[in-house]
């Protein structure tokens, strides 16, 4: 008896069944139907109740955000924002560009001859400055082949001051202020480069804002001044910067004293390794910092005793530390910036209450691009500049700590370039291929005037950045 359905036929009839579902996805003849097909309906979609924010409620906007691609990882956007580019491979390499060598830095008369010219920074200096975060993303380093700076009048004055401070072993402090784009931060960088080439130890607080806006962890400590606050994480970060920037000098210096430290330390450890210990562990960063400051400010002995080089200390964004910080004390009252131990140490050096027995220089720059409101600082700057005696609103309390810190601190107003200096930098722009027009007296004069009487940032913007 034969079966009504032959087995072979049955097998054939089953074959298309399992292929059928896949054939839509496979798109045998064209790719469009699969792409154009309606998305499959979700199971049970019809049964769900409309919710308050669901589909059946009124939609007032069609502007729905569509997620595209991978969202940025934590810290990625900030890293991109803070990225410093120091080279532009499209810019022409300037031939016969003099370098800011060790000899040039030590010889003030040779530097005076280079007045109004642009000098390149040596690789070593660039590395040190980069480690100290002295280059900023807002400055025009990414426009030229390699980092180079203009030798302006103030640079030569700075070199003379450094020379004096080293030879007479005295501490010089200075506050730079002036319009936005006048070159305060770059002048500070030049001073650091000069100090570094002279073999000094260079410490730098790249952004005072980061010390005081309350984004770093803090802890109270009881000191002779009452309650003060340490910032372990940020201290470790700064120690790391210092160790990297000054490795060459610090690796030749050894620990000379006994310090109270939470960990056992090899007694004659080199200072760079000592500082790295603090950089690697925020828990011990503050004791290491304190010990480091004692070591660096220990007086050198004559003959073959203890030798310590002069110290350069810089801080950018002074306005942020001349006011209350964003940190709160135990009673939720704002903490004055000078109660933060890092700031206290810097202000001590700036005001001269902490001496540098081996000579040194303390340079602070006021930031104008992100100016914090500090009325007492404005008052002090105007008073110390000696131009006029400003009036103080009698109904407004003065910040006594700022007033006392500024008692004997000289301030320097940074103005625009002279026309000769402007010509020097514009010729450098032209040689780099970034300025296409011929540098004539007329062009220099026009740019100089449009740049608020030669503000260097504006000269750069007018001739290189805004170029059509």
């Amino acid at each position, binding site marked *: 008896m034969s079966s009504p359905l032959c087995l072979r036929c049955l097998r054939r009839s089953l074959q298309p069944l399992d292929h059928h579902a896949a054939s839509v996805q496979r798109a045998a003849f064209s790719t469009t139907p699969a792409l154009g097909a309606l998305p499959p309906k979700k199971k049970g979609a019809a049964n769900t*109740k409309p*919710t308050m924010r669901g589909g059946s*409620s*009124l939609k*007032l906007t069609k502007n729905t955000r569509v997620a595209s691609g991978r969202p940025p990882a934590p810290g990625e956007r900030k890293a991109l924002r803070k990225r410093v580019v120091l080279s532009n491979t499209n810019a022409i390499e300037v031939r016969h560009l003099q370098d800011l060598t060790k000899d040039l830095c030590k010889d003030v008369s040779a530097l005076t001859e280079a007045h109004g010219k642009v000098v390149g920074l040596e690789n070593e200096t660039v590395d040190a400055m980069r480690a100290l975060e002295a280059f900023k993303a807002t400055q025009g380093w990414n426009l030229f082949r390699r980092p180079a700076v203009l030798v302006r009048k103030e640079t030569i004055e700075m070199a003379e001051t450094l020379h004096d401070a080293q030879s007479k072993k005295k501490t010089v402090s200075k506050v730079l202020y002036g319009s936005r784009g006048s070159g305060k931060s770059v002048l500070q960088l030049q001073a650091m480069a000069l100090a570094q080439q002279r073999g000094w130890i260079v410490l730098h607080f790249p952004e005072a804002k980061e010390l005081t806006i309350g984004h770093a*962890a*803090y*802890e109270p400590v009881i000191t002779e001044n009452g309650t003060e*606050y340490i910032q372990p994480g940020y201290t470790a970060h700064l120690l790391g910067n210092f160790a990297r920037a000054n490795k060459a000098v610090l690796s030749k210096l050894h620990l000379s004293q006994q310090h109270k430290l939470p960990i056992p330390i090899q007694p004659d450890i080199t200072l760079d390794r000592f500082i790295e210990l603090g950089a690697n562990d925020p828990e011990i960063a503050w004791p290491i910092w304190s010990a480091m400051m004692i070591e660096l400010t220990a007086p050198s002995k004559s003959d073959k005793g203890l030798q310590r080089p002069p110290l350069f200390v810089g801080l950018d964004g002074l306005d942020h530390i001349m006011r209350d910080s964003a940190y709160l004390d135990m009673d939720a009252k704002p903490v004055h910036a000078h109660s933060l131990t890092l700031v206290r140490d810097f202000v001590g050096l700036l005001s001269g209450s902490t001496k540098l027995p081996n000579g040194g220089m303390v340079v602070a720059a006021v930031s104008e691009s992100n100016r914090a409101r500090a009325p007492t600082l404005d008052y002090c700057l105007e008073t110390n500049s000696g131009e006029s005696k400003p009036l103080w609103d009698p109904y407004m309390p003065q910040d006594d700590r700022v007033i006392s810190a500024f008692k004997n601190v000289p301030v320097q107003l940074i103005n625009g370039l002279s026309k000769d200096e402007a010509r020097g930098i514009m010729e450098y722009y032209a040689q780099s291929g970034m300025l296409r027009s011929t540098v004539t007296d007329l062009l220099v004069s026009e740019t100089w005037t449009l740049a608020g009487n030669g503000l260097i940032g504006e000269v750069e913007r007018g001739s290189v950045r805004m170029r059509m």
Partner: protein
Amino acid sequence: MPFIFGVSFVDQQLVSRALQSFYGIGPNVCKTLMARFNIHSTARIGALKDKQIDDLGAELSTMTLENDARRQLQDNIKRLRDMGTYRGRRHAMGLPVRGQRTRTQVSLTLALVEWDRDLAGYENVWTTFIYFRGLLLAKHQFHSISM
């Protein structure tokens, strides 16, 4: 993932956000709490030390939070009702308590009160209430825009 007040938080979460997730802690209380234990404003849970977490937990356990705070609120309203004060009566009626105008501009409130009464016999009153209120809010919004 540390536990604070019986709730586990992921390490990446902001401390301020974690604290404000408790009923009874708003921006102000959070600020004083964080200041007391020296926690900076952008601190994350993972960056807290064990002692800070313990202290926070101990402090939170002494505060009136979550259901206690909710009960306190209910009790306060109940007290007003029991005393028969004007405010208590307004609460009971579901009408504005703080002297707002009711001649106009309270259509939503009145409608909600009405629904509240109508829906009293329904099985799942709360879900239905939310649903209708959503529709009504949308309608209300639409009218206010189109007008």
